[in-house]
């Protein structure tokens, strides 16, 4: 019997149908929802109609989006049909749970067509409209689009802006907003100027309400999130896992250096420090001159009966468990302890809180940090438990509308490696020859 992370999702399929003019943040919202749900192990995918359209019309001008341009209309129609077709197949073949149809879906006719398809296939449609008449907000979005949209690759920014505004104009001619009366029977959400006014109509499942709540907590103010593991601990030196040991002398050195180190990255920004309840994270945070909060939810993955053992001892004492864990590290639950999935569930309130907060420094543990990092960087479940996150390293995340930027700062204080590759009981980065996830922190600086 499976364990569900959010609601019971048995036999539940939701199609979030985005509605809105271009530059209303639809793609931003779509991507965030997919990231959040995937992280919670709810199978979700975004179907972006623009990507389908680009296969036939890679860089169209604004006239392409004129409703009276019949030839172009056909291409656009094909794109939408193909996207919806793929979406339905995805629901069926891959047991998808939440699909996001990211398109303008600007006419009632189009929406009714999707509605009918959903109903025929036992999929619950939820229409999510982002409506905006705040000029500044729209202009900011346009600025983002013209630098990031493949439609304007190689076009100079001013021309791109002008063309894009024209394109929006074409859509405005046919746009029909969700109507409180005509659409009263649908499940829909209308977000007006981000969340100044929100209309929530007939949300009838917990999962949908969760999505709405999540979207209401999103903000796009600039901010940073810093992540660090605790300094090197006595247990790290002894190659033991878990426990509640103090820092080693080198770990204490890291703690001492941390304030200066953080200031280098944060400047004069005010921030709040979140730690776990374990001694090693608090010792690491002890010199930081910021407000500090302890969260039980940030405690390290509980290794149950294996707590306080070395990997070698575990392999010896519980050989089958040791193997089982390597085979499916995300799902494996230590006897009397936790799995990565369990950790993700208890971290959920932290993520919701992080979304609405501004500058936060989190000092926590390897497994927990992997989970938080995986959320912001969209790292798939198969990979996240294998990511290498070295000690004495400060990671800075900068969530932006279309991607999260990562900077990694290495403190110049040596520490042991606690990384354990697949199929070995030895720790250390060199012990594993085939570790494809090592690159996660070293090579890529952004995700998509």
């Amino acid at each position, binding site marked *: 019997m499976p364990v569900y992370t959010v609601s019971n*999702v048995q036999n539940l399929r939701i199609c979030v149908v985005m509605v809105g003019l271009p530059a209303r943040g639809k793609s931003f919202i779509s991507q965030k929802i997919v990231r959040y749900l995937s992280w919670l192990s709810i199978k979700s995918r975004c179907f972006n109609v623009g990507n389908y359209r680009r296969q036939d019309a890679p860089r169209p001008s604004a006239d392409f989006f004129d409703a009276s341009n019949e030839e172009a209309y056909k291409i656009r129609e094909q794109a939408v049909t193909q996207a919806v077709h793929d979406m339905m197949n995805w629901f069926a073949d891959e047991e998808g749970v939440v699909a996001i149809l990211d398109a303008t879906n600007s006419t009632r006719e189009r929406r009714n067509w999707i509605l009918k398809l959903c109903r025929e296939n036992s999929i619950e449609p939820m229409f999510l409209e982002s409506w905006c008449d705040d000029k500044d907000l729209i202009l900011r979005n346009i600025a983002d689009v013209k630098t990031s949209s493949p439609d304007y690759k190689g076009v100079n920014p001013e021309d791109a802006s002008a063309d894009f505004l024209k394109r929006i104009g074409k859509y405005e001619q046919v746009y029909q907003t969700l109507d409180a009366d005509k659409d009263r029977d649908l499940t829909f959400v209308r977000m007006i100027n981000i969340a100044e006014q929100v209309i929530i109509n007939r949300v009838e499942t917990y999962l949908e309400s969760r999505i*709405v709540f999540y979207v209401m907590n999103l903000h796009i103010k600039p901010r940073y999130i810093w992540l660090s593991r605790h300094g090197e601990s006595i247990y790290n030196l002894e190659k033991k896992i878990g426990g509640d040991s103090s820092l080693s002398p080198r770990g204490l050195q890291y703690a001492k250096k941390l304030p200066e180190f953080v200031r280098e990255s944060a400047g004069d920004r005010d921030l709040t420090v979140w730690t776990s309840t374990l001694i090693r994270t608090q010792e690491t945070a002890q010199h930081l001159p910021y407000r500090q909060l302890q969260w039980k939810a940030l405690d390290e993955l509980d290794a149950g009966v294996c707590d306080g053992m070395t990997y070698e001892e575990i392999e010896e004492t519980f050989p089958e468990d040791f193997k089982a864990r390597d085979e499916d590290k995300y799902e494996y639950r230590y006897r009397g302890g936790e799995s990565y999935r369990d950790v993700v569930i208890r971290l959920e309130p932290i993520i919701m809180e992080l979304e609405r907060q501004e500058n936060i420094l989190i000092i926590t543990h390897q497994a927990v940090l992997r989970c938080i990092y995986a959320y912001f960087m969209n790292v798939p479940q198969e990979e996240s438990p294998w990511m290498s996150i070295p000690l004495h390293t400060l990671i800075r995340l900068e969530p932006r509308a279309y991607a999260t930027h990562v900077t990694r700062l290495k403190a110049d204080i040596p520490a042991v490696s606690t990384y354990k590759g697949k199929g070995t009981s030895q720790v250390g980065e060199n012990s594993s020859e085939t570790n494809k996830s090592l690159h996660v922190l070293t090579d890529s600086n952004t995700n998509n």
Partner: protein
Amino acid sequence: MSSNGPTDLFNMESPTMNAGNHMARTRRRWSSTSKDKRPKLTEMTDGVHEEVETDFISPGQLYSTESGRLFHAGKILIVLVGLPATSKTLLSVAITRYTKWLGVRTSSFHVSEYRRKMTACEDHNNFPTDYFSAKPKTSEGRSKRKQILDKVLDDMLQFFNRDKGQLAVYDALNILVEERVQLDKIFSKMNTKVLFIESVMTDADMIKHNVDMASRSADYVGWSQEAAVSDFMHRLKVNKQLYEEMTPKEQLSYVKYINFGERLIVNNNHFGYLINKIVFFLMNLRDKKGCVYFARCGTSDNDNYIDDELLNSEGTAYSKTLTDLVVKLVNERRAAQATSYPPSMEHATTPSAGSPTKTIGSIGGIENIISPGPSSRSMSPSLSPLLTTHASLKRTESTGNASVRQPVSGDGGDEDSFVVWTAPRKRTFDTARFFDEKGISVRQRSQLQQLHPGVVADMTGSEIRQSYPEEYKEWLKDPYHYRFPRSESYHDLAVRMEPLLLEMERMRGDILVIGHESVLRVLYGYLMACSCSDIPRLCFSRDQVIEISFSPFENKVRRVPIVYENSSCLK
């Protein structure tokens, strides 16, 4: 075991006693000679209306700011707006319960309660009937109305100024623009944000139901049903003519709550997280027809924390009895509620809520598109043991018809749903085995994992006192928040379980939660608004099922004995 204060720590079972003798242990805990001062469940009433003490710390508090207020939200007044019979009282009580639990110092102020209390000694025949109008025509009505509203206002001001309150919920008509502007003015001046929640009902069935409820309220004791309804309808009519619905023109922050959550409109939402949380809560709040049941899991051989075992024979006997008992309780209540519906159809062939997988196959033309859900098991086509209700019939009619809205497929959406939640431990889900066999939905919920006891796992009170004397002392001071090394506190557990509370609110039918005592304490603590000091001391034994039923003003508890063969060792 110590006879002072809470002794059972986290593990109900004390390992010093022989395995297999659980009922004897249980009896010890419940015996009348015990000097144990633990609160007994029978005496517990819903604490949602109890005053919050100044040093009150709530169960679910994530963290507080220096001002002692949560979420940087400052002081907030929530003003209910709406005609009589629009569930304002239910809403204000539910919000109070939830925010109190979240750690916000909340109090609700019901004008109807004030009126009843303040006029208890007066001659009711002389009570000015137009008091119930938002604009009384007689001077007696006006002065009475002013007298009572002024008193409520005073108390709310005092709650903020003297009692360090953070959130007051004001339950009165407030249907006039002028009243609302006045409130906003008074409280804004003292840096208190004002949020209006306007409950609007247009659904005739809902109104009828609410009027019916009102006619049975304390105001109409001794009245005939007819006279009560007609009197109440008069109150409604008078106010309907005066009602000024809220519009953006008033420039106030408000949530319009239409037909009990069918639609919510959030306006001028500048209050941030706490208000978003309340909106999230309102999205999930449903008018419940069913009950929440709590039961312990059956016994296994070792019954230690670390072991993950299936049930032993005693445990199996227990779970069999439990299954029959809960199904019987659910059916009895449904039969009683069904008087207005078609006669009971116990053996009807309509698919029931317990087996949603069965409905899937019957939807025309989709078999080739929709593969079975990620987890659908091949279930025996056994008929559900539950009574079919109006809701199940309606659902069958609309399924597969693309021209109408489809029935909800999530758990608990319909009033005739019945879902069993268990922890992911073998002991607990094995206890639900017979429900599963009957085709009732059984869900393992990771959040129901019992409280992690850390280093004191499977230790008795005296063992702990010996091994961890300092920690033990600390724990006695605050068993709710104290964590033994590596353990979870009840507070940690509550934070972890919060999502389940909202899911529970959404489910309209029956829920049975089978779990460890620690988990049941937290859920019970939420539903009955217990304080932090009570929650770790609540007792749940294997010889009782706890049934919690919902009503607008307070929730009620009933305890039903479980009698099965092995319980003979009790006597």
